[in-house]
């Protein structure tokens, strides 16, 4: 690697940041949402992470619809008058938002149910309570084996 090629690589990275920043934000939001779902012990915050994850995807679709200098796609009678931004991804995102809202509603209803039952929304406390109650196996279903193998639910 010469200094020149490093400079070119840095230049093209800057180009991506400058012209494709929406896609960079998409990737970042996706990762932040995923990280929140995995790392945050609070159930409601996991749901917020899920929302962030979905919002990132909305951004991907909306960014893909953008046309430089494009107008709102309302075609005057007789046609013509372009260029327009692509209307299809907007419609898709509208549907995806509806789906996302319903999912959030169900998720929050389940959170309320869990809070009513156990008085906590922290996953670690919750899992202890469930183990005491006998609802989660201590090991892989068989007593005396190594713990935490079967649940395997480190991911949420």
């Amino acid at each position: 690697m010469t200094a020149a090629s490093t400079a070119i690589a840095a230049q093209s990275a800057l180009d991506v940041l400058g012209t494709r920043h929406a896609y960079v934000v998409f990737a970042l939001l996706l990762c932040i949402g995923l990280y929140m779902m995995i790392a945050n012990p609070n159930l409601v915050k996991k749901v917020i992470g899920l929302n962030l994850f979905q919002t990132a995807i909305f951004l991907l679709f909306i960014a893909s619809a953008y046309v430089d200098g494009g107008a709102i796609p309302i075609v005057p009678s007789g046609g013509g008058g372009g260029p327009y931004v692509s209307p299809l991804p907007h419609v898709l995102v509208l549907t995806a938002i509806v789906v996302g809202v319903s999912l959030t509603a169900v998720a929050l209803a389940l959170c309320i149910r869990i809070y009513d039952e156990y008085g906590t929304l922290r996953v670690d406390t919750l899992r202890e309570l469930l183990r005491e109650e006998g609802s989660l196996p201590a090991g892989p279903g068989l007593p005396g084996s190594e713990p935490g193998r079967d649940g395997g639910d480190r991911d949420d």
Partner: protein
Amino acid sequence: MTDVLLPLSIAVPIVAATLPLALGLRYDEVGWPIAAVTTLGLVGSAAAVAFEVYTGGPFDHELGGFAPPIGIELVADELSAAVFLLVALVSAATLVLSRVIGPRGNAFHSAYLLLSGGLVGVSLTGDLFNLFVFLEIVGLTTYALIAADRSGASAYASLKYLVVGTVGASLYLVGVGYVFLATGTLNMADVSVQIVERASYTDPLVQAGFAFIAVGFALKIALFPVHTWQPDAYQRAPDAVTTLVAALVSTASAYALIRVTYSVFTVDFLAANDAIVTVILLVSGVSILAGSALAVMQSDLKRMFAYSSVAQFGMIVAAVGIADETALLGGIVHLVGHGLLKFGLFCGLALLAAGYGARRVEDLASLARDAPFASGALAVLGLALVGIPPSVGFLGKWYIALGAVRSAGATGGVVGVGIAAVILASTLFTLAYVARVIERLYFAGVERDPGTAVADGGSGDAAVPGTIPTAPLVVLVAAALVAVGLGFAGAAFETLLDPYLSEVFA
């Protein structure tokens, strides 16, 4: 005019889903009759569609009169008709079970009808984004149904499934977005053409799109590293819900994987991307082994068969990855057969749990003396799951293994032989846990006193302790008979699915 049946089969259950809630304001037990009538209509519609497809060939319906690729189309071909028929029959059979052991509320029947409509939608749609919407309808209602008994543990299991399932569906949506960017269309048939014209099979965008879609489906199907939601969800859900969910929900996702892989990306895409195929085969191989091994270690019955699903779906996904005509035939047969077997097994377990409080393997001790028919059906279904011929379980596994060995012979690779070996090993594991169940049922040598039989008190069911209700028992025995009967239908499967397979591998 048969094509009008396609939108009706999706719309009628979804519209009918509002009725139990609306009429429930005035009448109490109105949900079951509405669900029963709708589902019977669905069975009739599925039979008509299947008859039309298998005698007259595939047909489609343009929604709203907008021609594809701009409009959304619903397609019934040999593959989707088989899944549609399975969905309709299993939904109807589950109603017989849920009437006896619950849940019986109007809300349950609303969610049940929404789920049926969503599953039919998944099996019939010919549009990538429409598939996402139906997957989410299926997902949402499944989350609600799993928590239907309102216990804390089931709410936690359901929320866990919700987070994982939504990530899966969202990853699928990202993949669809990438494919849309590469091809500019969402219609499945059109995408398969445009991938070649506007992009190529080795275009990074198309490859990344497929990777996202495959990972998303892996989460929904519950393949090994990302299967962790499934055992909890199946175990905590009310028994009738487990029966429905285990038979159909992951099956619908696996169907969608086959559909997207072969009808959208096509077999040429797999041929052009060895790395992707290797990863699919590796993951499914590990899934087959790990699922079987974990199932052997369980003593809770529902959890045991939940892990068994991880292994069986591993085989179906392996069949997708092998990309051989015989293997794909096996994958489709196993997809339908596994749905039927899991319906029967969970139905049998639900009946034994309702009648005798049997939830763990040791609770089954000598139950065959008190419940000979239910135990017999359970044993037959279990052996069919192992793959003892003649049974539908044997047929599916046989074709997948045969296809794997044949593709290994054609390319000289060891992967195919490896998959066949893994399937054989998993069969032995399956025998290990099914044999434990059968041994407890028949040879535990415990004298049972009918007076001490425990009823499952939690869900407030009307089943009399110490008996097995007749109507679901008939359904269970019928499921066992069909599972055995389909074992003789290998030639019929080949003939019926041949048009689809030869089109895909053209």
